[in-house]
């Protein structure tokens, strides 16, 4: 995998774990995260990054 692909892959992994943590925070304390970050749009962005990472892997 080229350098850019590795960077995107790392970015996706970090973003995904961050999203999971934020979802957990939101479930524990509703409104805490959603006031600042739209978790739904964040998830859609994750999908796009995942698709890009998969394309670069090939």
């Amino acid at each position, binding site marked *: 995998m080229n*350098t850019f692909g*590795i*960077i995107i892959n*790392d*970015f996706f992994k*970090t*973003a995904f*774990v*961050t999203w999971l*943590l*934020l979802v957990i*925070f939101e479930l524990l*304390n*509703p*409104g*805490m*995260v959603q*006031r*600042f*970050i739209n978790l739904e749009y964040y998830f859609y962005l994750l999908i796009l990054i995942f698709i890009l990472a998969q394309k670069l892997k090939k």
Partner: protein
Amino acid sequence: MNLDKKPIIYFFRYLCLALALALILFVLSQAVFTGRTLIYNLDFSQSLSRDIVGWYPESRVAQVSNSTNSTLNILAEPIYLKIYSPVDFKTLTISGQLHKNDQGANLGLRQKDASWFFQSIVSDDFRLDFDLSNAQIKRNQLEIILSIPDLNDDSNISLVNNWIITLSR
């Protein structure tokens, strides 16, 4: 070749981790509230902000602005407001101005049993206190209702854009 690229990869890796950590810490810091009083200055020009949702339904209100001030005209009633409450407070105080032309207007707070606890707005300049011990807090939000029972097509009721909401404990 790989040796040359590794510093770049590590740089972006740690940058991503630092940004993620900063984001999580920011969200956590905003959720912690240690003060005894939380004050919201309502801005009726925005129906959706970080801490305040409303007034809604938006079809029941109309924003009017002129050079001196801005007001929110009430076209239909009731209208609702949601207020974010990061921690449990004891008292909710709402103060502000409205032009109601001697029509009756009531502000209510949603209670745990889904009923409303109403208080009448007597004068155009008002200040009302609500006890939050029985208030319904859903998703860390309090719900307020503004009811104007005698509202009709000829009514000209408007809220001045200077309302302040104070949560205290």
